[in-house]
């Protein structure tokens, strides 16, 4: 399985097929039992060996977008997005400027000072995407990012992910079984009977 910078690929399969497990391995959350994993030119796993600081790897190299936004309820939108660069040592003003830039790109800048509980589901998901992108990681792992959304909003999210991938040259792996967005992938990894099979997607234009 290989994903290039700026590319958005789909990871699909029936329930229980191991999509999430694969995503956790890719996200350096759990250790794979075998195989190797390379991010850019950095080896992360190699048959039992792994880099020492997986937490820093996740913080600096990997972005996550979840099925539920999981925003920090006691931080406002800007601070939810700016939290990661702040934790990484970026000055507050710079982190917030970067967050605001992303929020603007995702068209939720007008809710920058709102609390998460004040946002709609779509807005929360866009803020979650902004949080995943804010550290400009080379790879973003998205777990069912459109599951709770209707078709229009789901396609909008996919459009954003594609735009972000292009704009920031980020490789995005989207785990989904959402039939609405599967046609938007140009390339799909299908997990079937424990085997990952690469398939060509429709690559439908998102406009």
């Amino acid at each position, binding site marked *: 399985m290989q994903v290039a910078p700026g590319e958005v690929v789909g990871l699909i399969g029936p329930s229980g097929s191991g999509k*999430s497990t694969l995503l*956790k391995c890719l996200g350096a*959350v759990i250790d794979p039992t075998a195989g190797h994993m390379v991010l850019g030119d950095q080896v992360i796993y190699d048959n039992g060996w792994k880099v020492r600081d997986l937490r820093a790897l*996740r913080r600096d190299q990997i972005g*996550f977008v979840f099925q539920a936004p999981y925003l920090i309820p006691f931080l406002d939108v800007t601070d939810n997005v700016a939290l990661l660069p702040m*934790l990484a040592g970026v000055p507050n003003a710079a982190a917030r400027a970067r967050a605001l830039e992303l929020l603007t790109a995702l068209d939720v800048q007008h809710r920058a000072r709102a609390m998460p509980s004040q946002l709609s589901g779509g807005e929360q998901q866009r803020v979650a995407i902004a949080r995943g992108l804010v550290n400009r990681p080379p790879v973003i792992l998205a777990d069912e990012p459109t599951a709770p959304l209707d078709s229009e909003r789901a396609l909008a999210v996919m459009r954003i992910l594609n735009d972000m991938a292009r704009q920031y040259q980020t490789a995005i792996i989207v785990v989904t079984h959402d039939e609405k967005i599967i046609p938007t992938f140009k390339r799909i990894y299908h997990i079937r009977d424990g085997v990952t099979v690469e398939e060509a997607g429709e690559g439908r234009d998102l406009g």
Partner: protein
Amino acid sequence: MKGLPISGRTLAVLAVVVPLLALLVYVALYSGPLAPVAVTLESVQSRPLSPALFGIGTVEARHSYQIGPTATGRLETLLVEVGDRVQAGQVLGEIDPVELDDRVSAQESALKRNQAALREAQARLSFARSQAQRYEQMWERHLISEEAVTAKRQELQIAQAAHAAASEDLARAGSDRNAAIAQRGNLTLIAPVAGIVARRNVDPGTTVVAGQAVVELIDPSSLWVNVRFDQISAGGLAAGLAADIELRSRAGASLPGRVLRIEPMADAVTEETLAKVVFAGIPEPLPPIGELAEVTVRLPPVATAPVLNNAAIRRDGERVGVWQLVDGSPRFVEVSFGAADLDGQVQVLDGLKEGDQVIVYSEKAISARSRIRVVDADPGKRPVISLAGRDILHSWGKFVFTGIGLGLLIGVTLVMAGVYRGMVDDGKALLDNSGAELWVVQQDTLGPYAESSSVNDDVYRSILAMPGVAAAANVTYLTMQVRRGQADVRAMIVGIAPGRVGATPGWPPYLVAGRQLTRGHFEAVADIATGFRLGDRIGIRRNHYTVVGLTRRMVSSSGDPMVFIPLKDAQEAQFLKDNDAIWQSRRRTEANPAFNRPGVPGLLQAVIDSQAASTVVNAILVRLEPGHAPDAVAESIRRWKRLTVYTRTQMEGILVGKLIATSARQIGMFLVILAVVSAAIVAFIIYTLTMDKIREIAVLKLIGTRNRTIAWMILQQALALGVIGFVVGKITATFSAPYFPKHVLLVPQDSIAGFLAVMLICVLASLVAIRMALRVDPAEAIGG
């Protein structure tokens, strides 16, 4: 959370926390030991003074007549009842003469026999005289021998002697008969004057001995009141002064009278001056003999002079004077005082002038270093607590609400610590307020506070004479329920010896309202914790006391508020039995033949009187002259008076080390339990709050947040909860403390220790939540 920007939420939190902290600072500075002393000022006024003396006594008859037989006999008839009015010469009763009539008859017979014997003697004398004359004539004519005429002369002399003896016998018999008749006449009981039958001691059939009173008559026009005045305040008492007499049965109605005389003999035991006060007119209805009466004697008025409320009089070391406020700070001014009236106004002789302002009331004792806050009146009144702050906190949400809940628990913990401090402080206040440096108590006792102690009330005089003793005063302590309206209030009744305000140990050192005691009876100064107000009537035993002054922080070692009353009243209250018990005691005494001896009429009453009187006190408070070491003087008293003496240090040791040690241990256990419960609650709350954020923590871990950042976040929350809890607790404890039935003293050291303990508890309590948070698998954020 390092480097987080200040958000609106943070500002909102600060908006609540900052005022809370400000409130905490305010509470610390304006309540508890750091708070300024609230005082009330009053000006020295120039006005006339009407001094008066107050005493109590009993109604007595100036002339009373104990009427009884002069010889033993059985009472046959008694014609009068108690309360009957009788006239002079009226027959009141009759004693059965028994054998007296026979004795009179015998004397009559003896008289007649002697009369006959006299007649016989006269006849023999006439015969002997005629015979002697005839023989003389015959001898002159030498008709008979000289021997014959000499024999007739001797016979005449014998007849003359026999006649003289018979005359004397007759006189003796007449006297005997007259005596018997007189004795018979004395068996009739006759009223010597017009009066009222006050007592009827025996009934017909009873045998009475010579001198035993059968009935007692009094002259109603001679009623007076035998009044007792404390010697120390009896200055100016003189015959002829006008007086107001208030009988116990006619409270509120004053009868005019005047002082008839001052008794030349004062009562050396009770240290009272005795006086007789007569009624201006015979009271109708006639009061019963023995009824209690309150007498106010009006002394000559003092012309316009500077006067002051006696509540302002304080003592500073050995000086007596008042506190003035100079540039916001208290300054003691020594003052000489003169006459005083019963309303508590005292004449100022020297040291102050008209218009000078002095501190009249203060909520605690004042020193030169005291911070002062002037209030308009009644500094004992507490401001009403505003609940606005609590409402604001309540709306702050779950975290703050939880903090408040925790705060209440912390508040209880602080109050418990405050209760202990309060007990210690109560003990010290008890000692401070007594104004004593030595406590003289019954030998081998821990009295008067920790153990009962009885000392004769005249011992203090000999202690006064000991070297180094400046003042010594009796004192009694009695914890009891006193009546307040329809309810009871538990109080320690303190009997204070009569003396000069500010100079006599045992008096309340300061007041918050009213005045000090001026009457020797039936007045009280009460601690405001009793709930009494000025003018209230306190029921103690069978007497009622008018509250004339209020004080604060005058409590026993167990926290019972004090009620100060005159010593003699307190002695009576301490030992006075209920009326039923008194009657039973009297009957027992009457039934004892050793006390009820017919030939000693006054003995029974004397014994009964001695049983009802009390001559003991609980302790003697001693103040020392400057330069004398308490230990040395105490040792001297122990050695020479064979009494136990405690210094301040020793008495403090008894109070703190023995009296409240058990309570202290109980409170200590409570503190431990509360600390454990607090820790458990904080741990539970932090754990719950962490559990609520478990998904967010997983997300944070997933996106690379360091463990120490998450741990610090939880720790901060625990500490914030602790801070809020402590602030709320401190405020709660401070504002609720005055409403606790016991004195609660919140000292800054306890607050600091409490704060550190709360922080430590929060740190420890957060460990469970931190451990749980650090064990959260970041994979949980992804699900699947």
